[in-house]
């Protein structure tokens, strides 16, 4: 594998190669020094280029939080939605225009906590979405409150004596709900993460990637874990790659080994496939499948001024 093929466009001497894919008027971004979110964004842009999906077909949806800023920084069609509701917005986009590749980049607090209900139902329906969940183990933007992903004994603003709630094992959650692509990598595994995002973009069905990312300002500082660079070194030493490991055994314990890898990849009919099949069975020839406004032969496209 040539690593040069995994970073998309090559740079020139005067400009960073990813400047074309970023809203440079919003730079520098708000993410702290040594935060891993910028690295995730780099991996996403590289994967989107590598997947060869046309840029106008990619939509990025984000919720609220540090990671929720991602949609605002990417120069794709993007939505910054209400808290926890990134998946409902994305579902609507996908159903209205099935040709779009809808990606959700959001944090653990947004997707798993307040949006947990939407996450499990999108996974259950096998909606054709790509979800990139950046897990930094707390609610970083609001000051480091304990999240449903905070490992036991970790200190957060709302758990000054150590968290005692049992945290979510997110790959197990989405796998058991029916997700057809599940992977977990850390912000340090940029090449693997780029490959995973590319595979997820090209995968038909609900794809979920959990990215473990350092939070230097709140999580690492309160737990005295050093800077984000120290956490990156921790991921380097304590990540165990186990592809197709049982997601049940992928719990994250406080400062212990993290199982990473691609856990699930299977083919199952998506929500729209299942709907078309059932309608066809019931209605027969009367049923005309909806192909969306971007189909060149449909009447809708001809009346749509954008195309």
């Amino acid at each position, binding site marked *: 594998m040539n*690593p*040069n093929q*995994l*970073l998309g466009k*090559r*740079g*020139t*001497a005067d400009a*960073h*190669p*990813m*400047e074309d894919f*970023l809203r440079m008027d919003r*730079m*520098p*971004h708000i*993410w*702290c*020094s*040594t*935060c*891993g*979110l*910028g*690295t995730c*964004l*780099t*991996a996403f842009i*590289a994967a989107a280029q590598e997947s060869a999906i046309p840029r106008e077909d990619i939509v990025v949806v984000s919720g609220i939080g540090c990671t929720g800023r991602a949609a605002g920084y990417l120069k794709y069609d993007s939505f910054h939605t209400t808290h926890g509701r990134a998946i409902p917005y994305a579902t609507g986009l996908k159903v209205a225009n099935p040709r779009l590749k809808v990606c959700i980049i959001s944090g653990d607090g947004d997707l798993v906590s307040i949006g947990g209900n939407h996450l499990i139902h999108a996974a259950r329906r096998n909606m054709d979405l790509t979800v990139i969940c950046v897990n930094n183990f707390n609610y970083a933007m609001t000051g480091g409150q304990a999240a449903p992903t905070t490992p036991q004994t970790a200190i957060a603003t709302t758990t000054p004596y150590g968290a005692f709630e049992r945290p979510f094992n997110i790959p197990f959650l989405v796998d058991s709900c029916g997700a057809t692509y599940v992977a977990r990598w850390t912000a*340090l595994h*940029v*090449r693997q993460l*780029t490959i995973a995002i590319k595979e997820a973009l090209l995968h038909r069905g609900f794809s979920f990637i959990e990215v473990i990312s350092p939070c230097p300002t709140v999580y690492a500082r309160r737990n005295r874990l050093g*800077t*984000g*660079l120290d956490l*990156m*070194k921790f991921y380097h030493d304590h990540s165990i790659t186990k592809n197709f490991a049982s997601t049940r055994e992928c719990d994250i314990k406080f400062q212990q080994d993290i199982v990473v890898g691609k856990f699930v990849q299977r083919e199952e009919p998506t929500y729209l496939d299942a709907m078309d099949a059932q309608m066809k069975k019931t209605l027969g020839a009367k049923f005309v499948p909806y192909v969306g406004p971007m189909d060149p032969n449909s009447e809708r496209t001809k009346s749509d001024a954008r195309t």
Partner: protein
Amino acid sequence: MKYWRKPLDSDRKKAPHGNVHVIFERCKGCGFCIAYCPRQVLEVSTEYNRKGYHPPVVAHPEKCVNCRLCEALCPEFAIWNTLDEVPSVE
């Protein structure tokens, strides 16, 4: 580049050589590129930038093999590589 033995295809293959570009004022000094450069090309600068961070400086430009790991790891889009057309001959 130092090898523990001479590679069998060394007469045909040459390690590529890259140029490292750093935007001094955009960097937030996280040090990922310096810590993870496989060839130790970068070092922490002694100067501060406008934000008060120490960006990396290209201390050993001749060592870069254009692996682009610094570019992939940089959260600030402040460092990138370009392939030098002339391969390093060693």
